[in-house]
């Protein structure tokens, strides 16, 4: 029987108490953790053994910290959408509500990235068939052809501008179910079945500031 993975999609959200930063007087926004974000999880394999999903993006609102479905996926209400290794922003050719979303990757630890520099030139928007964040292996994840494991590259911070011009930083910490990298001794198929359950944490700055 085909596992009904999509029917069972759940996300769990955990708020992590944040530190107060008294220097700038602003309360730092909370760090949110999302696990088991099902981004086109595997439902079968091609004849060559390539894992295949249903081919659909899963849409997410950083502001609301929730999955967006239905007609709202054709609005400004979503900020990022993920399918396999493809990440859309709500801007450029992917914009569904005339928004101006954009993103880029910064080399930093999550905590050390505290502000988008003024005049940052790295911003990219989706420009079909290109994405703001390239889905090529080695950019923000690696796929190992010996172990068949996909792993997020450590030290990559996704800096995101939402459709309505708010800023967020995000770090993908795992591509596997419950955030646990499968044992390397498991078969490629067993590994693939646990794949594309994203675990990520993010900070959404609702006040329009570039500081996190």
């Amino acid at each position, binding site marked *: 029987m085909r596992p009904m993975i999509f029917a069972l999609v759940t996300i769990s959200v955990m708020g992590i108490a944040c530190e107060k930063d008294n220097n700038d007087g602003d309360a730092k926004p909370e760090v949110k953790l999302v696990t088991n974000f099902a981004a086109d999880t595997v*439902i*079968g394999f091609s004849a060559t053994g*390539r894992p295949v999903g249903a081919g659909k993006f899963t849409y997410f609102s950083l502001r609301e910290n929730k999955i967006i479905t239905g007609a709202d996926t054709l609005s400004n209400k979503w900020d990022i959408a993920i399918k396999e290794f493809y990440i859309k922003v709500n801007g450029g050719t992917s914009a569904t509500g005339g928004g101006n979303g954009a993103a880029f990757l910064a080399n930093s630890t999550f905590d050390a990235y505290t502000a988008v520099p003024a005049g940052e030139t790295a911003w990219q928007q989706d420009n079909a068939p*290109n994405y703001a964040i390239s889905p090529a292996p080695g950019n923000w994840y690696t796929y190992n052809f010996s172990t068949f494991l996909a792993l997020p590259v*450590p030290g990559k911070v996704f800096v995101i501008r939402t459709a309505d011009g708010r800023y967020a930083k995000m770090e993908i910490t795992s591509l596997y179910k419950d955030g646990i990298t499968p044992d390397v*001794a498991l078969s490629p198929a*067993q590994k693939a079945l646990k794949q594309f359950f994203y675990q990520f944490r993010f900070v959404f700055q609702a006040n329009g500031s570039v500081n996190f």
Partner: protein
Amino acid sequence: MRVHGGIFAFEMNTKGFISHLFLLTAFVFGHTVTAFCQTDTLSGESQDVVVTATRTERKLSNIAVPAFIISQKNIQATQLRRLNEILQEQTGVFVTSGSGTGGFGGGIFGNGAQMQGMSPEYTLILINGEPIIGRQGGVVNLSRLTLSGIKKIEVVKGPVSSLYGSEAMGGVINIITALPHTTQTNVNLKAGGYSLLDAGVNSTIVANKTRATLSYNYFKQGAIDQNKEQFGNQQDPFYNHTVQANISHQFSQRTRLLVYGRFFAEASDNAYEIADNNLQMQRVGGQTQISDANVNTSLQHNFNQNISTTFRAYGTGYRSQQKLNNLKDATPFYEDDFRQQFYRFENQTDINLPASNKLTAGGGYVYEHLQTTRYEGERSNGIAYAFLQNEWKPTENFNLIGGLRYDHNQAYASRLSPKLAVRYSPSEKLKLMASYGAGFKAPDFRQLYLNFINNASGGYALFGANEISIDKLKALQQQGLVGEILPRAYDLAQLNPETSNGFNAGATYTFNEKWSGDINLFYNDIANQILFDVIALRPNGSQVFSYFNVARSYTTGAEMNLRYRLHTNWTLSGGYQFLSTGDKDVVAKIKDGEMYGRDEATGEVYLLKRSDYYGLPNRSNHMANLKLMYENSTNGWNASVRAIYRSRWGTFDQDGNGIINRKDETAPGFVLLNAAMQKQISPSLMLGAGVENILNHRDALNLPNVPGINAFLSISWNIKAGKANLAAKNSVNKTQSNTF
């Protein structure tokens, strides 16, 4: 071709063979040789002569590059039967099933030899000076090669493309087959754990001007299954047959013809568990068949004392076929057929020049052909080459060698490979040597010609560098076959050979009659390493790959050996290699503060320090061996105990940065302990027994090919024509000193 696993089979075996140096180079006959032997080879046994380092016969002690010999005696004392088994016991040689070039290339392509930390892809494997083809994933599976009928194995470390061209990037292993001087027959059998059976016969006939050895070997190894919960084996059971013929005919004092032929056929029974389109696990099984044949003919002629020439013609073919069926309903699951041919014609001329110079000049043409179901069409490539080497030896204790080779071909950039080596012996006891050598490895057929789009199932596409360009990609994009073109695609270019520059400096010292030792320091600079990378994405999201000259790395370290003759019959020897390696781009990124790691316990990201980086995967910092050998020709006993140590090594990345920086990305070190003993029961009969992996070290994940503790028994029977048979060892020694 179908290979049957017969119960009774015979194999040729080296035991009791009287050895004679099998010459592939010039300097063979007549006065040149006589003079040569007096100055260079007479003082030692012929087994101390090395041909691989200079393509001419040289005494090992006069060689200016790191080299060693595994003698027939050594092979006999260990009672090992396959090339991978004996190589893994040598200092600084690591026999690995992984290619070790990073995340790509797993452990499925058999056993290759890593030397001085250089990948098995960069080791050239020769039989009687001619290359073995049939690399799978870049690696020649050394278990294809029997130790039966072998006179010795010569190993030269460091790049030697100045003489051998492509693949001689990290070193050369040259197997020299035996051709005894007396008529004799040997029948041999070894049986042991894991259904090991090695059996054979070999026969030598010596007529007036002709000597011929014909031999047959059967080898069988049962499955190694270290994880019973999982369907399938770590190593599938296999069995193979090797037939070898070695013929020498002396036309005159000055002219000799040598012909060597070999045929090999292997079958292994495969069984795997693979998920089908509905994620149901399916059991598939079938057979892999490998065959290869070689014919090597050389004609040697001495014009006079100072000029000799050798013509060589070599042809070899390799075929690998795999057919897998679904085990439940016998429907076809996978089929693969790979055929490769290699032909070479070559001349080498050696000239003694005035002022103590010896010149070696040669050239030839190689034609390679490939046919496979993995991609359409047939491919071929031609390589023309020339080489020149001069040795200047003004005095007995000094020589200077310079060499150069040019390889020109149709499919990739041409290559010039220089070499420089110097030796100085201030005293009888001390030898100092230093050398520089360049090496290269040509892009292989898959890197050049692979053209594989899987339209039917929406899979990935993989193109050889000669099959794709940015313009072709743009054309495919217009046809809707390619979506996004990645920036990497603009780097597509003609592939260059992978290259190495090797530096070696060392010394050997004989303390006294009991103690001797050697040390060698090495540095290898490797550039233009070929890896594949994503160049574009298909509209359905799958990836398009091609090959690039991207990686740069280094391997450096020190190797030491110490020998101690405890007693007339006892010898203790130890070897050690320290190795440090790294990807140069990774080292630079760490230095620039651009590499991060993820903590194993907390998952927190941290900036990497240089000390966090373990270096290239599949390399151990420390490797060592300790061997105790016993040999007594009066009571007919010989025995050996060998311990092989390897320290922790990097396996695969676990935190996404693509490099080895955490302990859980490494495999634990281990010791393999092997012992063997033999007794001469009668002049013609030898009995043996032994135990391998006495400590029973097992690691299903990292050492899938290493079986647990196992024992064996062996028997060897020699029949010699003519006079009564003395102890085999005595006659070996006697004949060796009578070479020429």
